[in-house]
């Protein structure tokens, strides 16, 4: 048994086991932690397949951002997961059907690579074995498709402006802290000496 094969089995076994634990564990926080474990193992599998960029992106984006967000949500929302899980057996047949369809689709996609290996070389941008895939992605995104890349950036900008325009409300009368104003106050502005006659209030 070669070393890569050994690691492949380790990663995939842990990935499958932790994926099972995601849906089986009683505590939702544990579920999210198992999800993170699945992501990390999937990243390991990507690394073995030679897709180091995808592996790192998976860790940075999914583990670093998405999973942490999940963790926040499960901790902050008071969701009764026990009641959510009650109908699990009821939905199992549908789940099995969906899973089977996805398995067939995966086999179809993978099968085309096995049956007709020449397909990969006829893509619009054939894979060049000489360069690592981070560099290859960069060359595609920032040179060949630079226009589309910038265009997608403009779309995201519009989405951001739109979200702000449609939701942000400037309420009048809200007291906000203005540190510049605060520290600029002199003693004369802030205090006032008042002579109070005894027995009378202000």
């Amino acid at each position, binding site marked *: 048994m070669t070393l890569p094969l050994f690691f492949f089995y380790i990663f995939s076994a842990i990935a499958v086991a932790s994926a099972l634990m995601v849906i089986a564990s009683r505590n939702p926080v544990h579920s999210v932690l198992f999800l993170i474990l699945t992501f990390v193992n999937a990243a390991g599998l990507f690394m073995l397949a030679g897709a180091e960029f995808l592996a790192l992106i998976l860790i940075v984006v999914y583990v670093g951002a998405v999973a942490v967000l999940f963790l926040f949500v499960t901790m902050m929302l008071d969701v009764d997961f026990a009641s959510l899980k009650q109908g699990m057996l009821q939905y199992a047949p549908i789940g099995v059907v969906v899973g089977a369809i996805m398995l067939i689709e995966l086999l179809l996609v993978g099968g085309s690579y096995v049956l007709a290996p020449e397909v990969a070389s*006829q893509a*619009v*941008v*054939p894979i*060049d074995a*000489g*360069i690592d895939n981070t560099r*290859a992605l960069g*060359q*595609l995104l920032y*040179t*060949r*498709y*630079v*226009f*589309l890349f*910038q*265009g*997608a950036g*403009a*779309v995201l*900008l*519009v*989405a951001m*402006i*739109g979200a*702000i*325009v*449609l939701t942000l409300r400037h309420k009048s009368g809200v007291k906000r802290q203005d540190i510049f104003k605060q520290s600029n106050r002199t003693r004369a502005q802030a205090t006032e000496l008042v002579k109070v006659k005894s027995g009378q209030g202000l």
Partner: protein
Amino acid sequence: MQSAITSSDVSSFASLAPAYPELLLAAGALVLLLVALFWKNNRAGVIASAAIVLLVAALAVLLFQPAGGILFNGVFIVDGFARYMKALVLGGAALSVLISLNSGREHGIDKFEYAILILLATLGMMIMVSSNDLMTLYIGLELQSLALYVVAAMKRDDRRATEAGLKYFVLGALSSGMLLYGASLVYGFTGTTQLDRIVAAIALDTRSIGLVFGMVFLLAGIAFKISAVPFHMWTPDVYEGAPTPVTAFLAAAPKVAAMALFIRVTTVSFGSLTHDWQQIVIFLSIASMVLAAFAAIGQNNLKRLLAYSSIGHVGFALVGLSSGTQVGVEGVAIYMAIYVAMTVGIFACVLSLRTADGTLIESVSELGGLAQKRPFVAATMAILMFSLIGLPPLAGFFAKWQVFLAAIEQNLFLLAVIGVLASAVSAFYYLRIVKVMYFDEPTAEFARVPAELNVVMAGIGFLVVTYFVTVGSPLTAAAHSAAGSLF
């Protein structure tokens, strides 16, 4: 080693010359956004004026740049057709921002983001017009649509406006899905996303049913954007619900861009499948003309009526395209130019209508007595209505003349006859407005009309009346060379 496929064909700033108008617009929009953000008081009017200047500057750069060609490794094309359509888009956008300058407050769009989003939407339209690749097409379309969804819902405390925005968004997303599905099939069956290579790939192969399937979905997605029947359901609701300046913008520039996209996809990529898409376009055309003519009759809301009118005009423009010839495309190009001018003029009239106490007038029955109170507005509106019907010697007649001529040359007699009949039916609802304005008793006092609306109405009214002696021949020549660059 850098293979040719991963290197860029843009090596210096000068080699970007064909894309200068887009660069100017994008950079200008970003600068305006920053300026508006750091400028404490809300000066929506100043930003809107700056946006008009920017649009006109981009138009000037567009008209005076000689450079054309295919850029960015084949995803972006500048030819005569793109330049013609971009000029229409920029002109329509600039005019529709101009006519909304003074009415931002009462329509709830007096925010600086309005002008910025209009600029970015216009950028999206220019990318659509210049797209030479299914991916560019989609990016441009999304940039345009996303900005328009936001603008339609911008009056967020108004139920109708938010409903319009949401409806537009959901149906727009559905149409994008159909378009993407079609694009993926086309890519799958031809092996390329570049529009001018698709035609070569089709030529090598026998016409496969999967490719036609993909083409149908692609065209259905674009038909949503030009609101051709049966993909028109969103149009009346969105036009009615959105603030009037936004409706004016929606009816003018985006229609041109989507129509340009439709023409480019059908004639360039699927040029060898003309017989297949011709049936689709003929169906869309007949359905749009007939449905709009009958559905508009019962409308009392002015904006809703204009929505059906715009659906009908898309149908008439498609008559030209359904011939599938250069003459037909030339007819559509002329039609879209005249359509944009008439639409902006009509909406300038609608925006100028309000009672003395500031209530907006949006229904036809409230127009009574306009001819006595505001004779100039009534006269302009009447001229534009006659032009929309297509009566000679007004501009609308020549627009219809060109497209029907192209259809008859290709022996599409039935289409032409149905078109003329639909045009006659549509005369009823246009003439009803004229009748109400001139022969009904006044119901309200009308407020004074802002100066820039008077200028726009006078200018467009003049051009529409004197079309044959003034702009007619240069416009025809421009449209002729534009259509020539596609064939």
